[in-house]
């Protein structure tokens, strides 16, 4: 990313400080460098292709740089491209553990040819404890974080009273070594056992060639010492949601006694179900393999530790720069660290895809670790695809079992579900994923009783992490296929069964939190009911049958929450001297289009779209003057406090959260600087927003009589009169926005922000202003888990070749509630990408666990099959006889300030159950093991 001064001059950097072991470490976000004279791939002046019509995106703002092959991604850079770096680049290669049964004894490189010998080898016993097992801080979701804090406190209490505190069941403190110490049994497959460093590209390449697919030749293992933690234990915390009508739920119970009360309410649920013999009980089970996000750019990055200045320089493409840097700092957070670290400079690149797989990825740590052992030389760590399959974060494989109960009038009475996620080796974000899966276990329905338990267990497999859907893909699949079975066994119409149980405003989720947002599920089902794909499905079936094809139609709903239990965002809007606008955001654009969206949503407010959008500016938070420290429990009474600074970037955070923040910052600029400047130019009384409007990029007074003011003229006055030239806003959302009043040059301004700072015209750092009359969300609502939702109804039409077991998805209908749509092309593109990914992991993507799977280092796209164009319906309408995917988005809400909804994974999550339901419709057989391969279909059909 590039950060420029408000005046549009030379690139500047933004800086914040993180405290580490009592000393402040300066963090700087750098711009993508200009090319060295030798570079022939041009510089990425990315995020500078603004769209001309205010509020409308004509193309991606990052599009031109990408489509012309400029240096955009971390993989594109070498040390020679980085100004001021030494050109002597080293190359890092980690060897991956091959077993969790035996102790790793060491490596044997004697069979490597001389030209392939590494310059340096680092084993786990050479690392200091802090480097080997840094104290990772994986915060993702405030309501889970609170539970972790509660468990920590309970553990400390037990320890102080001499009780047995256990160890592994509280693996928040369990930190597997980054590199296995010789003599120890690896904790999981793929865990690094050695770091090899090469001082030449030729040596590195030679070693890779020699070692490819031949790992056992270079690693030595002895007998297991069995001192590792037992596999199969659950990572902490596990999630239990028990709800009994209005009488008991996670959200409403006393947090201190909730778990103690759970057993008695589970008994009440069982007693209630047993007491009513008319209830229809529908047991279910489902399972799915782990899935690779398969983002196109394998992880890569550069590190250089300038030992003279105790500064670490990083080039990375990550979804979580904030967490990654904090965790890297923790590696140096000890007196025995190899270097004292005074500063970190991060060049934050656009990732080549993410899907959650770059959120809290271990890659950043492994890169930073390599930098400590290269003798002060820059190091490049670049996975190839085999590496990426071997160690990259996966979506969890899962087993789900449970039971639905409904009364004879089609009313759901209870859901019971146990969700077991294969967390793999590292804890990562697995407990958070399992927890959201537990919320999704209630589907899109109002259900009086719930008994849901979710856990992620430690296994030898490749680590699971955040991935698109975050627990939703697993839970919705189990629920929606079970619901369809319930309908089928009772002879109920699958749509009407769903319509009879829809969650609406005023209901509560299985967590017990209230639904306070209009979901419009009934309207969406009504639309679905009338569409030919659903309404004429029997006629269509007959048409296919006449052609000898086995055809089925399936329906499924998803209710994907967006955001977390509490989200903080920061954004700035800057008016440059030439009248152009720049937006900066802490968010990272993984391809989801947030840079484009944030550039155009200010258009209606400021009369023009951003000419430049800078992403990944997470250090902006350090300039807001806000803190998350609250030792005295003042919360919002402390004018400098906020509940959360910033978090990882996920696509679902754009449409509501990030857009809101940048629009509020734009409002502050408009009312705090532009209107006062206009009043100065025009003369006369103070102006209000109602007095003016934008016409063709110029501000006009509605009453007339004064000349229009182009932004450039307004900028001239703003700079000359030393009005704010930019605003920096921080927002916090937790069921509602934190709101406050802020002093501005135009008087006090009420905003849905909890932090505001003004940029002075001289290019210096923004100056925070003190908020007043703050109203913020109370802490109780954190236990609702989620508050805002992006519902989607999917209908899938498919044909099955019963002789080969192959399935072809013919048509998909998606009815989506996306709220206010900011960039229609991005919404439909996100939907189309979700349909393709869903088809892919439902029917194609198959990856076994253990050493048969990617941990053996031999997996790539030749055996892990992804959906290609021919697997996906490519038309965008429904035409009988053709293959298409039709997206129907609900009309924008009739509200004064309609908001967008984060729809990143909304469409994807209900496609797989709709496919399974269509298969049942076609064949009469239920398939609940993903992927549904031709072999499974043939087996199910008894062939």
């Amino acid at each position, binding site marked *: 990313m590039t950060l420029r001064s408000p005046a549009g001059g030379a690139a500047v950097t933004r800086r914040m400080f993180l405290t580490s072991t009592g000393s402040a470490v300066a963090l700087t976000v750098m711009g993508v460098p200009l090319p060295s004279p030798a570079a*022939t791939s041009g510089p990425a002046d990315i995020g500078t292709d603004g769209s001309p019509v205010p509020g409308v995106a004509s193309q991606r703002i990052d599009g031109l740089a990408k489509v012309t092959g400029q240096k955009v991604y971390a*993989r594109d850079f070498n040390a020679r491209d980085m100004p001021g770096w030494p050109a002597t680049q080293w190359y890092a290669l980690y060897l991956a553990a091959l077993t969790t049964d035996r102790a790793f004894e060491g490596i044997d490189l004697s069979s490597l040819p001389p030209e392939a010998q590494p310059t340096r080898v680092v084993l786990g016993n050479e690392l200091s404890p802090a480097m080997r097992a840094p104290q990772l801080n994986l915060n993702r979701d405030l309501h889970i974080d609170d539970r972790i804090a509660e468990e920590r406190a309970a553990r400390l209490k037990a320890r102080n009273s001499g009780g047995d505190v256990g160890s592994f069941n509280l693996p928040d403190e369990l930190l597997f070594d980054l590199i296995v110490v010789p003599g120890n049994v690896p904790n999981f497959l793929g865990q690094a056992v050695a770091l090899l460093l090469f001082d030449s590209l030729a040596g590195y390449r030679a070693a890779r060639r020699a070692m490819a697919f031949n790992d056992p030749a270079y690693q030595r293992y002895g007998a297991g010492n069995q001192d590792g933690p037992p596999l199969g234990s659950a990572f902490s915390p596990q999630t239990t949601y028990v709800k009994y009508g209005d009488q008991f739920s996670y959200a409403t119970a006393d947090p201190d006694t909730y778990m103690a009360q759970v057993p008695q309410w589970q008994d009440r649920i069982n007693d209630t179900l047993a007491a009513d013999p008319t209830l229809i009980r529908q047991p279910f089970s489902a399972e799915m393999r782990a899935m690779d996000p398969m983002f*196109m750019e394998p992880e890569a990055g550069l590190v250089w530790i300038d030992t003279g200045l105790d500064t670490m320089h990083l080039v990375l493409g990550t979804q979580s720069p904030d967490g990654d840097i904090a965790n890297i700092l923790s590696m140096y957070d000890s007196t025995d660290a190899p270097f004292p670290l005074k500063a970190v400079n991060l060049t934050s690149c656009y990732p080549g895809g993410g899907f959650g797989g770059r959120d809290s990825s271990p890659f950043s740590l492994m890169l930073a670790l390599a930098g400590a052992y290269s003798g002060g030389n820059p190091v490049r760590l670049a996975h190839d695809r085999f590496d990426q399959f071997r160690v990259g974060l996966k979506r969890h494989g899962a087993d789900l079992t449970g039971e639905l109960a409904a009364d004879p009038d089609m009313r759901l009475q209870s859901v019971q579900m146990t969700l077991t996620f294969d967390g793999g080796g590292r804890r990562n974000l697995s407990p958070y994923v399992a927890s959201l899966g537990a919320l999704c276990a209630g589907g899109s329905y109002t259900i009086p009783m719930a008994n849901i338990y979710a856990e992620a267990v430690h296994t030898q497999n490749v680590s699971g992490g955040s991935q698109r859907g975050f627990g939703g893909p697993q839970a919705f699949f189990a629920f929606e296929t079970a619901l369809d079975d319930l309908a089928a066994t009772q002879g109920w119409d699958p749509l009407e069964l769903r319509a009879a149980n829809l969650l609406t405003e005023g209901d509560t989720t299985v967590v017990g939190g209230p639904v306070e947002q209009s979901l419009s599920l009934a309207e969406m089902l009504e639309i679905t009911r009338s569409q030919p794909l659903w309404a004429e499905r029997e006629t269509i079936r007959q048409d296919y049958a006449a052609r000898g094809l086995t055809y089925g139609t399936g329906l499924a709903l998803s209710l994907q929450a967006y955001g977390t239990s509490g989200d903080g965002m920061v954004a700035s809007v800057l008016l440059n001297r030439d009248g152009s606008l720049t937006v900066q955001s802490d968010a990272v654009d993984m391809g989801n289009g947030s840079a484009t969206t944030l550039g155009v949503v200010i258009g209606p407010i400021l009369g023009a779209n951003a000419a430049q959008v800078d992403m990944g500016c997470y250090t902006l938070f350090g300039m807001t003057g806000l803190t998350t420290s609250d030792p005295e429990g003042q919360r919002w009474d402390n004018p400098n406090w906020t509940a959360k600074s910033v978090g990882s970037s996920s696509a679902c955070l754009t449409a509501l959260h990030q857009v809101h923040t940048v629009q509020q910052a734009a409002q502050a600029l408009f009312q705090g600087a532009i209107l006062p400047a206009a009043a100065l130019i025009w003369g006369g009384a103070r102006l209000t927003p109602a007095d003016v409007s934008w016409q063709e990029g110029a501000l006009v007074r509605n009453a007339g009589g004064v000349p229009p003011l182009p932004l450039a003229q307004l900028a001239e006055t703003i700079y000359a009169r030393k009005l704010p030239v930019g605003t920096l806003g921080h927002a916090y959302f937790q069921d509602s926005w934190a709101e406050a009043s802020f002093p501005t040059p135009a008087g006090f301004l009420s905003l849905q922000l909890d932090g505001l700072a003004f940029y002075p015209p001289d290019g210096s750092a923004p100056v925070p202003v003190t908020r007043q009359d703050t109203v913020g969300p109370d802490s109780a609502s954190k236990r609702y888990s989620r508050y805002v939702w992006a519902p989607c109804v999917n209908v899938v039409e498919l044909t099955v070749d019963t002789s080969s077991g192959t399935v072809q998805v013919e048509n998909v209908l998606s009815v989506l509630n996306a709220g206010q749509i900011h960039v229609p092309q991005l919404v439909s593109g996100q939907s189309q990408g979700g349909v393709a990914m869903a088809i892919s992991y439902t029917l194609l993507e198959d990856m076994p666990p253990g050493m048969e799977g990617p941990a053996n280092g031999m997996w790539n796209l030749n055996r892990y099959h992804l959906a290609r164009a021919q697997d996906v319906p490519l038309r965008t309408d429904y035409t009988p006889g053709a293959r298409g995917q039709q997206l129907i988005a609900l009309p924008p809400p009739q509200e004064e300030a309609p908001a967008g909804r984060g729809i990143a994974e909304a469409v994807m999550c209900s496609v797989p159950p709709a496919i399974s339901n269509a298969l049942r419709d076609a064949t009469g057989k239920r398939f609940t093991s993903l992927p549904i391969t031709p072999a499974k279909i043939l087996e199910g059909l008894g062939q």
Partner: protein
Amino acid sequence: MIAITVNGTAYQLDDSRSGDRLIDFLHDDLNLTGTKFCCGIGVCRACTVQVSKPPNPAPSPVISCSTALGTLDGSEVSTIESVANGGVPDPVQQAFLDNFAFQCGYCTPGFVMAARIFLDGLRAQPIPEDEIDGAMMEAIGSHICRCTGYVRYFEALKPLALAANAGGAEL
């Protein structure tokens, strides 16, 4: 020696380089990183470049991750860096931009190169219009895109294909 031309510049390479992959030569020697490395085994086609080799002047798509330099003696290679003219995108690139055809963009250079070769082929040898969809699938249907689900790439390319097939101007 291996004689190879990349984006109009001629290079003479020692025979010892004959086993090196084209993509590594582009990245490491020439710092042309617009050609993307993804799977490295020739499946995803993100690394597609355009190669012409006498006596056949017609360019063909080549998977640079799986092509040894030794097989390219006498060839002319064009990469994504050669496509835009003075920063102005060519019609394929512009169509992909206008249609929001890509998201992360990592697969895009490969799609651009394959699409250009496809359009050149249509111009040289038009086909019945009802075969265009099948020909498009043949040309770019094996490329993997993980973000956008292919729909918008095909939507963007279709008008260009129809125009090229009808004798439209060269790119």
